[in-house]
């Protein structure tokens, strides 16, 4: 028994010594979780510089009240990709995007769209000055007759910038119709809008009045084809090919109900509504027009304009092209009878052509600047989501020091106590 006890005492002494050696190693060994480097806004570049130069790999904790400039953003992103743990937050920052597209209109002009994730004011300006001040959330659309240079939107915490694209080179518009007031005034408005209009107006069987060179619809020559009645039905197959190849088709009035175009139409079950009013009302003159409205819309059609609860503009994509159904068969009455009739009539047709016409944008070759028109998105792409990543680098097994020390002390005490009880020195 005493022999066994001596063995236990030796073992306890050895184990205690080993524990103490381990504790000594734990205390003396280098490394462990380095402390994070924190910075906000103007101090961020300095922190990034230090993080780059000292190479310690200390985590970065960044706070932003504004979306950082692209250089700072990209720098932080590079450090993150190099393995530096990065945590950031920007409580007041939210998504926003700006785009500028040329209008499909020979008179020129641009459409500026700003989307904001949260309600916030925005001041939009171009190189010539302020364009508009807007508020709210969601999409804001601004139509500007001319935009100079680039468009900038100032939002709380960020600045968005979009560059103006090359102007479009609109092609001709082809009109197929019977001779009548609708075709006559349509051509007049097209010319006033600056469109080159080619037309074939049927006067009698086998006899047409021709304006320009109305050839077979062709995406290389025609931005859009407008059919006002069933006289264009003889070219239905050619029109369908044209649309599928990317052309724009506007079916107005009686043409909306033509069987020849039913495969392309956004809506079916067309019904004709004749207004009881003899004269157009002053306030909403379109209420006095005769319209054709669909009873059913194609599955993928969209309504772009309503009059009350009746669609007046329906649209649908067919192949690479677009087809619009416009309700009114006598829009010419807007021009003759409504208050600012000529302008109203031009706006109606300009709107339809803008939505339907084939006018591909030619992009300038330039360096990618998407970070300018969606800076918050670019920030997320570079830095990751707010909050960031935990430092997951392996630091070795961290042993609990206090329990180890207590265990070693307890073993030594037990060994000493055992020897004292035994009567050993």
């Amino acid at each position, binding site marked *: 028994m005493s022999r066994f006890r001596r063995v236990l005492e030796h073992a306890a002494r050895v184990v205690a010594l080993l524990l103490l050696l381990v504790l000594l190693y734990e205390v003396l060994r280098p490394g462990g979780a380095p402390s994070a480097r924190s910075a906000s806004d103007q101090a961020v570049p300095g922190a990034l510089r230090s993080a780059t130069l000292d190479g310690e790999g200390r985590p970065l904790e960044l706070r932003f009240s504004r979306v950082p400039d692209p250089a700072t953003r990209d720098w932080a992103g590079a450090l993150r990709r190099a393995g530096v743990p990065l945590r950031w937050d920007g409580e007041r920052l939210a998504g926003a995007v700006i785009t500028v597209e040329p209008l499909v209109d020979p008179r020129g002009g641009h459409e500026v769209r700003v989307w904001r994730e949260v309600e916030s004011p925005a001041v939009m300006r171009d190189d010539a000055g302020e364009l508009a001040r807007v508020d709210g959330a969601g999409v804001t659309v601004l139509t500007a007759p001319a935009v100079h240079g680039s468009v900038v939107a100032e939002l709380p915490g960020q600045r968005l910038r979009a560059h103006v694209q090359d102007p479009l080179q609109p092609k001709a518009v082809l009109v197929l119709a*019977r*001779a*009548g*007031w*609708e*075709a*006559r*005034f349509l051509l*007049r408005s097209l010319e006033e809008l600056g469109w080159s209009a080619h037309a074939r*107006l*049927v*006067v*009698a*069987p086998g*006899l047409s*009045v021709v*304006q320009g060179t109305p050839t077979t619809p062709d995406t290389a020559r025609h931005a859009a084809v407008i059919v*006002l*009645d069933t006289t264009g039905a003889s070219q239905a197959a050619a029109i369908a090919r044209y649309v599928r190849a990317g052309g724009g088709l506007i079916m107005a*009035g*009686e043409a909306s109900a033509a069987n020849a175009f039913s495969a392309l139409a956004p809506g079916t079950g067309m019904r004709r509504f004749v207004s009881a009013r*003899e*004269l157009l009302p002053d306030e909403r003159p379109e209420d006095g027009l*005769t319209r054709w409205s669909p009873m059913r819309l194609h599955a993928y059609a969209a309504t772009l304009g309503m009059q009350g609860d009746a669609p007046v503009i329906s649209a649908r994509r067919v192949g690479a092209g677009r087809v619009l159904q416009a309700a009114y*068969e*006598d829009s*010419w*009455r807007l*021009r*003759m*009878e409504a208050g600012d*009739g*000529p302008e109203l009539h031009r706006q109606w047709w300009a709107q339809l052509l803008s939505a339907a016409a084939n006018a591909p944008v030619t992009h300038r070759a330039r360096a990618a600047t998407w970070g300018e028109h969606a800076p918050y998105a670019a920030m997320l792409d570079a830095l990751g989501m707010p909050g960031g990543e935990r430092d997951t680098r392996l630091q070795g097994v961290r042993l609990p020091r206090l329990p180890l020390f207590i265990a070693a002390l307890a073993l030594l005490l037990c060994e000493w106590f055992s020897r004292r009880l035994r009567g050993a020195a």
Partner: protein
Amino acid sequence: MSEFVFATAMYESGDWDSAPLLPANLIDSIARYTAIPVAPSGVNVPLASAQLFRYPFVWLTGHLPVRFTDAERRNLVAYCRRGGLLFVDDHNHDIDGAFHRTASEEITRTVGPLRELPNDHALYSAFFHFRDGPPTTSHELNGWGDNMVHEHLLHVQAAGRIVVLYSNKDYSSEWDFHPDSKRFMSVDPTRFGVNLVVYALTR
């Protein structure tokens, strides 16, 4: 589809209804020769009323002096500016007569000066072909009025478009006949009326 409605202008100062059978004859010709949807009967529309703007082609004729009221003048200016076309025909075919002198004065004062329309203008080939310009009427040749054959129509242009056409040739007499008489005519005299309407609808 909107149909063509033949409109006759009513003006306060004169006998605007001096050719009551003319509308029916022209309507018949348009329906007979063309595929243009046309209303079976014409309308009479006051020159000073808002209803004038429903009819972008309006016929005006008479024998008596023409003096537009202020309202008629204002309406006519707006009508021409928006795209309307007014056809005026001297029912007297007399350039020394009261209608011609006063009507041409009113037109010049209201919308602009009258000028001769070239005889190779697109109007004369808009449907039927009239190589020599406006067709001569039997009433020009019968010794009535100024006993002259008027070689040209007159017109007022605005923004590159004809807004007023003026005739001394008395088409109002030529075309104001009972519809049953047409079958006895070797050449339908209303064919030029078809040109007028087709031109108005396509230009």
